[in-house]
């Protein structure tokens, strides 16, 4: 029942997104869409996925889009090109898919082929073979560890790609100017600054909890990384980019991003050199279960480091680009003094 309500709401939001011209509103709705689909995942028992989708779909991607919209302008120009050919393509694909669903196993039926063959082993034997209760983590980090390695490399690639496209050489900053900006920001953001100061340590702590609790409940390296990054982003938004850059050294975090991937890979190499196959954690310790625990903990750490740092890098580069554009604009029109509005 719950799924029907949520899915209907999702369709309503999606249609509203087509109709909206104001990109800002579109992104707000996209945030709602992310939260709703995450609730759907909870209703479908996919707690780990819901965790990630909430942090990523509703959190990080909305955030990045907002930063970009603040740089590129808010309104969509209404012309749609070739709506009919688009409709045609979409209709064909849609009908093909609906045709394909007609003899699909029904939703929720336990005897569908998907629930036979491969999956039962994960459910029945993972406790003996891996020894942790969260099956998703066991599959993710051990049975299909190589997919997860690929996933880490994907996010690393995105980080490098953003660096290659957006990174700017920064001029040395004038400390006085920073102080002035800081003061004005301090006045404007007084209340949230205080609240954020209370919250940020809590968020960081929570990220650590998620990182190490991933074996027993929803969570793990990726989710922890995103939450950690979210805390840093919160700090950056309230205390300014230059302050944040002073706290978090740029070349250091690039190093951490590389180390995360290398840590993950070298767990594999270690297993390889101790005589097992790549990612065969059983050989890491005398007891296979202990080996699995060690291997999973290490690679989760690698995932966490890389994800957190890459998301921070991505955000910093977008924010720095925005700052640079604003500065350029300011130089262009000197007559307009900084007329900063507040929140």
């Amino acid at each position, binding site marked *: 029942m*719950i799924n029907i*309500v949520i899915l209907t*709401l999702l369709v*309503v*939001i999606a249609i*509203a997104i087509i109709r*909206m011209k*104001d990109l*800002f*509103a579109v992104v*707000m*709705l996209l*945030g*709602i869409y992310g*939260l*709703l689909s*995450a*609730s759907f995942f*909870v*209703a479908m*028992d996919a*707690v780990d996925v*819901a*965790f990630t989708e*909430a*942090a990523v779909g*509703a*959190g990080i991607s*909305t*955030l990045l889009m*907002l*930063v970009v*919209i*603040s740089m590129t*302008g*808010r309104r969509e120009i209404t012309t749609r090109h070739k709506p009919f050919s688009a409709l045609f393509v979409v209709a064909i694909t849609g009908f093909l898919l609906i045709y394909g669903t007609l003899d699909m196993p029904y939703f929720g039926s336990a005897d569908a082929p998907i629930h036979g063959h491969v999956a039962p082993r994960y459910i029945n034997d993972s406790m003996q073979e891996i020894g942790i209760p969260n099956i998703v983590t066991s599959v993710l980090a051990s049975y299909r560890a190589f997919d997860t390695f690929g996933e880490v490399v994907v996010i690393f690639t995105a980080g490098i790609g953003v660096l290659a496209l957006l990174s700017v050489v920064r001029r040395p900053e004038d400390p006085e100017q920073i102080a002035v900006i800081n003061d004005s920001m301090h006045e404007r953001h007084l209340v*949230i600054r205080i609240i*954020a100061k209370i*919250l940020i340590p809590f*968020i960081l702590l*929570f990220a650590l909890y*998620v990182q190490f*609790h991933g074996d027993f*409940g*929803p*969570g793990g390296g990726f989710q922890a990384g995103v*939450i950690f990054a*979210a805390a840093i*982003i*919160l700090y950056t*938004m*309230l205390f300014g980019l230059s302050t944040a850059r002073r706290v978090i050294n740029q070349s250091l975090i690039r190093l951490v991003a590389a180390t995360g991937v290398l840590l993950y890979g070298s767990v594999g190499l270690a297993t390889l050199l101790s005589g097992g196959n790549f990612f065969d954690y059983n050989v890491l310790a005398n007891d296979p279960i202990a080996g699995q625990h060690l291997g999973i903990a290490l690679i989760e750490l690698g995932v966490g480091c890389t994800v957190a740092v890459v998301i921070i890098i991505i955000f910093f580069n977008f924010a720095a680009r925005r700052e640079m554009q*604003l500065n350029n*604009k300011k130089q*262009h029109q000197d007559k307009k003094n900084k*007329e*900063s*509005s*507040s*929140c």
Partner: protein
Amino acid sequence: MIIAATLAIFVAMILAIIRGIAGPTLYDRILAVNMFGTKTVLLISLLGFVMGRPEFLDIAIVYALINFISVICVLRYSDTNEFKHTPDEKESTDKEC
């Protein structure tokens, strides 16, 4: 009673969505998203009890945090001129340079 509460939350969510779609101002939408977020937190907590496995409340905590951060982000990045409310100011800054 839990189920009734879940339904009530759903109705409140629908109302928030309507406000989010209708707008009309930017701040109405932010308000709608914020309210939607808090309702989702409640929904997740309730769903845990409905489905009999309430130990996954971590997700609700994440929702609450993410919700806060995205509202801050919206406000922080809506302070460029383009997002100012008064219409006449909008026209002047709108031209692409």
